[in-house]
């Protein structure tokens, strides 16, 4: 693999490659470049996410964090005219941008939680079942079982169990975001991507979501974009720094936050740059 000049985390990647199977790489981003109307947004990004770990993508605003996240489950082409110009992403060894790949199936297996939670115009229970009803992946469970187990996992069950047929629009923002996560979990995904899931929430709800992420970690790889460095330190195992569309450094969170190798990363962490 050709390592771009800015990348200084080759050490960590090699170690990861030799890691035992239980720490297998789920996402492998190779030299990914994304451009929009000739203007490049991502240039030669390299990254990886390991199973049963949380990868935090951090960096100043405008560095392309959300764009990178969206390439990882092929929702980029839905929301903008930006296109992947070179490189690829491997998910469990399969190419996401290969010729035969069905983007919709990608989205079924890798689900995303967005910044601003949005309730579909239906009841709480139906919201949870939205994807399940389509994909019909009941897996032998009844719809009540699915609703209950997903809502329990996100810690919402006790609050809403008596009003499952109420419209979801009546929930508070914090509850709504947990509902969105439950909705994603109901799809039985193999990975979850989160785009600044707590930025629209108050500190209490944020805390609950962070607990939820830590609770989900043993079951699913999670990739989270966050602009909150403290949050990244709290919940992530690996951190990836993006700056101006390029991946500067990826390493275990502990090492990166205490001994960053890249100067820009160090400046960012110590608050010299915003």
């Amino acid at each position, binding site marked *: 693999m050709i390592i771009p000049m800015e990348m200084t985390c080759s050490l960590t990647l090699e170690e990861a490659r030799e890691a035992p199977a239980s720490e297998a790489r789920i996402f492998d981003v190779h030299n990914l470049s994304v451009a929009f109307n000739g203007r490049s947004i991502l240039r030669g990004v390299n990254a990886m996410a390991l199973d049963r770990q949380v990868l935090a993508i951090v960096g100043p605003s405008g560095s392309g964090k959300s764009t990178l996240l969206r390439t990882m489950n092929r929702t980029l082409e*839905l929301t903008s005219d930006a296109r992947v110009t070179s490189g690829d992403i491997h998910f469990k060894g399969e190419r996401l941008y290969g010729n035969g790949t069905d983007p*919709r199936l990608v989205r079924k297996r890798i*689900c995303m939680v*967005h910044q601003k939670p*949005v309730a579909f*115009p239906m009841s709480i229970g139906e919201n949870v079942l939205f*994807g399940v009803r*389509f994909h019909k992946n009941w897996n032998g469970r009844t719809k009540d079982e699915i609703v209950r187990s997903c809502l329990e996992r996100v810690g919402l069950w006790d609050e809403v169990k008596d009003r499952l047929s109420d419209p979801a*629009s009546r929930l508070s923002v914090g509850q709504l975001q947990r509902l969105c996560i439950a909705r994603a979990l109901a799809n039985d995904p193999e990975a979850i991507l989160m785009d600044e899931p707590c930025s629209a929430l108050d500190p209490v709800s944020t805390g609950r979501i962070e607990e939820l992420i830590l609770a989900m970690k043993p079951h699913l790889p999670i990739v989270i974009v966050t602009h909150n460095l403290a949050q990244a330190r709290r919940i992530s195992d690996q951190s990836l720094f993006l700056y101006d569309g390029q991946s500067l450094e990826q390493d275990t969170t502990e090492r990166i936050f205490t001994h960053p190798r890249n100067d820009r990363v160090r400046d960012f962490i110590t608050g010299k740059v915003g």
Partner: protein
Amino acid sequence: MHDTAVLSPSANVKGSETYRRSVLRDRLWRATLWFCGFIGFLLPVSIIGYLVVEGIHCVSWRFLVDYPKGTPLGTQGGIWPAVEGSLALASIGLLVAFPLALGGGLYLAEYGRSQRFNKIVRFLVECLAAVPSIIYGLFGYAFLVVFLKFGISLIAGGLVLALIMFPILLIATQESLRSVDDAYREMGLSLGVTRFYLVRRVLLRKAWRGIVAGIVLAVGHAVGSAAPVLFTASIYFSKGGLGLDRPVMTLPTHLYNLVSEAISFDQAFGTALVLIAGLLLFNASAMLLRRLGGGSPQ
């Protein structure tokens, strides 16, 4: 007055004089605008009021369900065939136009990938929405009545009304769908569902109010048009009974007939009132529907 206190005594008197004059002008201007608004309010109220006052004595249940009678025909009796005909025409028009407009609006809002294509189509449709109703009448006559040999018939009139309704419905559908926040699309599609599932379960539920508003606008416009119907479907008097291949009476053409042949102004007031009241009721019930459908579609 404020101004003289604000301006220090050292300011020249002429200065404060001009200021006061411009404040006066400002007040006059505001009064003029209020007057304009008042007229704008007075006009519809007085027109409707006048029609109600003059026509109410004529309208009764018998008036609605009875057939035209008397000599000359129409001086007495009721207007049932006209009511029937108007309802039939509007229904046929809606039945034909709505599916086409819904499909078209759906395509433009959700499926059409090329922005240029969408803009061109939308431009065409908007232009055609402004075509004068007499032109629809000319076309309906030449194409449906003569060329396709439908004759002056319910079906010809219904199809012309469908043509009139189509642009209005299309624009309403497209706009209602467009107004749904993109976040719904992103969130839904990133769960791996197809666009059609998303449209069906989320987008249409969010957009239905705008679509209903469009239907009300389109139907109201069509029911009230006399010009296109005059040459494609209408007949002066009919014995009732609807047939797709037979001409019908309609409320606006009946009104026109009563007036232009000077048959009966009493009946004309009644007919006008029924027409207006019908449209108002239709509008009001649609508004009620939207209020009720209100907070929470399941």
